[in-house]
């Protein structure tokens, strides 16, 4: 279970207060106007921001002291998920070792995962040679490979056209099915959240609410 305990964060005269509990295998969609603090909440969970007070607990253990790469979290962003100068294989491989030192077993796992997201023979291409949807699949492959129990989706479908978006949502559902992470997704399209079968949350007046 992921618990947000009286979490307070303020910056530039704005302050947020988050209180929430999400079960281990739940899919949670966070809705809200732009600037309402959706990304702020994800950045707090991922560890890119530090709260002023309160705590974030995963299975009862506080995450606050851990740097982003040691938290049980992996993220899929809207942009800049891939390094433009590295190949698909290297970009995914960074999810296993930050210095790209992979043993044969890990390399095999990597290729299997690329297979699963439908990019079997693309491992030596660079991001610029792929379409926007394919780039997001590569990033998703890395999330699948890392198997971190909390999966953060920061508007990963927003930059895609309608067809690609549908395919991406299906693939993401597959991935969620496979390893059952606790998902937090930010979106401003309720239909995306619906398609993912998510519990709806909304940030209003700097607080988190359930939407029925």
């Amino acid at each position, binding site marked *: 279970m992921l618990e947000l305990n009286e979490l307070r964060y303020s910056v530039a005269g704005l302050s947020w207060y988050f209180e929430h509990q999400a079960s281990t295998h739940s899919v949670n969609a966070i809705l809200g106007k732009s600037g309402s603090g959706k990304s702020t909440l994800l950045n707090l969970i991922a560890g890119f921001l530090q709260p002023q007070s309160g705590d974030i607990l995963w299975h009862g253990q506080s995450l606050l002291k851990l740097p982003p*790469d040691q938290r049980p979290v992996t993220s899929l962003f809207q942009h*800049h998920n891939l*390094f433009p100068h*590295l190949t698909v294989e290297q970009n995914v491989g960074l999810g296993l070792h*930050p*210095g790209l030192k992979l043993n044969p077993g890990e390399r095999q796992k990597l290729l299997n995962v690329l297979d699963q997201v439908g990019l079997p023979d693309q491992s030596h291409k660079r991001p610029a040679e792929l379409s926007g949807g394919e780039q997001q699949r590569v990033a998703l492959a890395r999330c699948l490979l890392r198997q971190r129990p909390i999966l953060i989706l920061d508007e990963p479908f927003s930059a895609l056209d309608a067809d690609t978006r549908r395919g991406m949502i299906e693939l993401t559902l597959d991935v969620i099915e496979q390893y059952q992470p606790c998902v937090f997704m930010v979106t401003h399209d309720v239909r995306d959240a619906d398609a993912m079968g998510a519990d709806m949350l909304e940030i209003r007046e700097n607080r988190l609410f359930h939407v029925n």
Partner: protein
Amino acid sequence: MRLPWWSTGSLALLLILLLAGLPLLAIALEAGQINLPSVLSNAYTQRVIRFSIVQAALSTLLSLGLAIPVALALSHEPRFPGRSTLITLYSLSLVIPTVVAIFGIVAVYGRTGWFNTFLTSLSIEPLSLYGLNGILLAHVFFNMPFATRVLLQSLDGIPGEQWRLATQLGMPYRSRFRHIEWPALRPSLPGLTALIFALCFTSFAIVMTLGGGPRATTIEVAIYQALRFDFDLNMAVTLACIQLVLCTVLMVFSTLLARHIDSTIGFSGLLKPVRWRPTNTHRWIGILTISIATMFVLLPLLGLVFATANTKFLTVITDSLTLLAIGNTLVTAVVSAFLSVALALGLLISTRHLRVRLHHERAGIWLQLAGNIILVLPPLVLGTGLFLLLQPLADVFSLALLLVIAINSLTALPFVVRMLEAPMMQAGRQHDRLLQSLGIDAWHRWRIIDWPLLRRPIGLALAVAATLSAGDLTAIALFGSERFKTLPLLLYQRMGSYRLDEAAVTAGILLALCLFLFASLQRIIGGRAHA
């Protein structure tokens, strides 16, 4: 093992403090004994200070006064054959070593140069290059093309809609200039003025070669004379203190003005160049302006090329003095370039962490400013400090190689930091969350992310730093001796003893060496076009 983020910055800062702070301390300790009122009432110091300021002000005024019409003329003619080559030519004066350009200027405007031969043939009294004339001419040669490029960029940023609107409203050129072009030029003028003034104020090689005796001497050259000819350490320290104060004032002033620039430049360079059909009279005036400016930049370069091809070529190029100087120049240039880039990367890796990850923009910029130390502590002031510091301990001239490398790397540092800052911050901002979530840091980050993404700008920065150092006449004039000479010093001495043919070949070799260093460092370090 994880190195903390501040380790590289602290190391660079420590080195900069050792190289610049200790000499500064030595000056400060010595300065206590100076009788300030008597120094300031001394006629010589007064004249030197006055001349430094006056020549810098006149140089700035002339450079900008000429650059504005040239930039306007170039922006009114957005497409004529060779325009981009011309603009490249205008940036050449930044890379070309000062002494080499001075040689070209002497070949054209010197006593027996083309220009005076031409004047004599018209029975006009020949012009003397030495003294204020020559200093101004050389300063304009270096700064006018540079200012033109900066101003042209501002003009090219004017949105096309403004021109279309002006045409619909039937505005005459005078109002177009007042309402469209002048507002685009104005924001960059204060910063540009401050920069050119500072460059001319601390200019050394030009004043040393073209200045004529005590009447046309700047503070930098006066420090040099006090140290090398009069062996008057007291005088040197006094002048160094005056220079230090004036440079600090200048630096504060230009930092304030530069901030003003950043906040006022609104439009990007992506917009289309001006579309406006000038009248025929305007076109002719414009073409004439461009031609004169181009001749002004091109003639000294041509003069140099013609002079190099002479009968002394083989003798000079096989001369052991020349060969030794080539070796010394290469070593100094390459080592100071690497030191300079290493210092810049050390500072920037830490400031990037402060600015991008910790969002302490201001603290990061303060740390970065350490790279500008040479602007407050110009080479001759730094040299004075090094003299004071090392003289009791060792024979200063036997340390020439090390001292020249130290000064040259600090001289190149502001340029190197400025060149690497933007690509480093941009790459950092784009990938910061990803880097954090994957835990790519320290050595892994450098090897897998930074090096491949930054090797091109690093190659360029190394190339520029090496070229600057190879062409340096300041540090080597101060610390060079019969035992240690670089090509610029050899060239200066050959010019000074009127062995002009030998000097011409030496200038040619130095220019070729600079071009070689520039191209090869950029290629080897920067890699091929692939990013």
